[in-house]
């Protein structure tokens, strides 16, 4: 098995951990953390393909990861602001109770 495949397996397993967390945990914060994990898994893929790809000197993978990290930061800021808004609204952050568009 090549190192690239190992990296890809690592990233897909990390992605699935995040996915399972998103799907089965009720706590909004944990769900957001799961989403962050999924983003990180994607970043690992970018780096792996950059490292073992045909044109590492172009640096596209690295630049994409930088953008992705910036997007993740934006997502975290907005996401946790939403969590706080939900908490203020229903006094808990159980996602299964946040099922109304209007309240």
């Amino acid at each position, binding site marked *: 098995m090549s190192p690239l495949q190992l990296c890809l397996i690592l990233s897909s397993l990390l992605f699935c951990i995040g*996915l399972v967390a*998103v*799907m*089965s945990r*009720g706590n909004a914060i944990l*769900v957001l953390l799961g989403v962050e994990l999924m983003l990180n898994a994607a970043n690992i893929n970018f780096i792996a393909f950059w490292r073992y790809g045909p044109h590492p000197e172009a640096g596209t993978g690295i630049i994409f990861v930088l953008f992705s990290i910036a997007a993740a930061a934006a997502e975290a800021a907005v996401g946790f602001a939403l969590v706080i808004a939900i908490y203020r609204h229903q006094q808990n952050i159980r996602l*299964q109770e*946040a*099922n109304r*568009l209007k309240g």
Partner: protein
Amino acid sequence: MTFSAQYLWLIPALPLAAAALGAVLPRTGRGLAAGAAIAAMVASFLVSCVALCTALADPAAKLVHNFAWFDLGSGVLRLGWLLDPLTAFMCVMVTFVGALIFIFSLGYMKEDKGYKQFFCFMSLFAAAMLGLIVANSLLLLFVSWELVGLASYLLIGFWFHKPAAAAAAKKAFITTRIGDLGLLLGMLWLYNSTGSLLFFDGGAGVLETAALGSLAAQVTVGGLAVSTAIGLLIFCGAVGKSGQFPLHVWLPDAMEGPTPVSALIHAATMVAAGVFLIARVYPLMAADQVLAHVPVHALTVVAFIGAITALMGAGIAVAQNDIKRVLAFSTVSQLGYMMLALGVGSWVAAIFHLLTHAFFKALLFLGAGSVIHAAHHEQDIRALGGLSARMKVTFVTFAIGTCALVGMPLFFSGFWSKEAILHAAHGWDVSHLPFYAAVLGVVLTAFYNTRLMAVTFFGKPRSPGAEHAHENSPVMTLPLVVLAVCAVVLGFLNTPVWPWLDTMLLGKAEVHGHSLMEGAGLMGLSVVLVALGIGAGWALYWRTTRTSASAPDPLAVRAPRLMTFLAAKLKFDELYDATVGRLNSAAAAFADFLEVWVWGGLVNLLARLGEFTGLVNRETDERMLNGGFDNVSGKVRGTGLAYSRAQTGGVHGYLRFLVLGFVILVLLVVMGGAR
């Protein structure tokens, strides 16, 4: 001093810096903000003069300085500065008139709370306009163009606590935006077809022969040449900005802003932008002239729009009673003349008229501002009167401005520029209709200006404000005097005997004049026409002066229906209300109708159908059969419930289905691929 296009950015940058300074200064920094604004304008003026000298040294040259603005990966967007006589003349005019208006504002806005913001916005406005002039790229021009729009929105709505001002600002912004959409589309089309937006780029620019040839050679919908289509789209922008028919409606409403703003918008900057744009892209507009088999030439449209506007504006101005509105419609009319000149192929005449008009219209607006300021913000000319004795400087300078606007022969700049336009229109071989419209416009111009002068300055004062009016401080009258001198002198830059401006703009080396006698017939005609207009005005308004503010207008007495029609601005606002506005509400009503009756009805119908089947079901169930149907309907209910359980509103459920769906999809694709 050597000056190259590289340093041209200084001209807009100085007012921009003043605007930035004004933005960060605290409210107490009034004096500093105003001083910085004026100093920046004066400095810009000096730089512009240097630029003008450089440009005139070699009028045929197009000095450009292009640079990469940003790298898109697949291409590079480039911007640039351009220095030729057109740019230089415009820069000098804008900075000079602008500086005088700024100085005038010192006095006019003295008591206003938003003094600091006012100078900040004015500087921004001037900076945007200058950026528009020095741009060598349609993109940079467009950016400045939009900045001009923004600044005008801020300035027209400067007294935003007045509902009328806020509405006027919005109207100006939205109306010009309609035109700008055309400009944007034209720009994108141009970039798509030529891959560049630079005007001059050493042979690769869009206004150079290579690009023009290919643009004129292509044909698009309706048999139009691509250059015609792009030109007309760009012209849309000019129509919006320069208040041409049919988008002129915002311009008179823009009078809600402070008077110096009106002067800046109507004289030097915003409205001139449209004319300047067409003059700048003139090679593109004229590229289709060589083609014979096109349905329409771009310039023909320009000429007709200009002629319509010129006549219409003059007509409406006859019936207005607000001193600023009269001037506003006269601006509309004069801009129509400029467009007409552009359309008939004499863009130098248009620029000449643009320059002279800038000076005398700024003079008129500042004079009106002086009157308004002195008469305690009384703007209705019926309530003024008798000011000639009370405000001597204002009266004399205003009279000079009026003479220039009317085209009093020989000694006033307006005469020469208007003469050039009439001459060009007369020589146009496509149609003579624009010429007749222009001639009629001349009569009307003379008529309404006589009316304005007579009612405002003569007779008895008809309101307490006018009675207590007295001359303003030198800070306000001095710009008037300077502008008045210019309004006279400027005409001699380009008489038929010595057409210096023409030669410079056209990039020729020597001045070839010809005798006055060549155009004497036409000139005589226009003198007669002016005399006719003034005579009519005199007969109606001067001989019998108005006695009270509420007395009916003499013209209204003689032709009441015409007068009301004109006073209502040819009912354009009503027309737009009735067409565009009504279309809008009709669409909304239609959507509402669809919502309530069609979709709602459909839903209701389905519900009724359901009810009906239910009824039938029950009937059959009760009357005919027993448990079997109960059983079946129970099953149906169960399925429905099971489905409805999927719609929990819970995120988890949706996500789970999403993921399962993804997995199944991938498996299907893989298996399908394997087969």
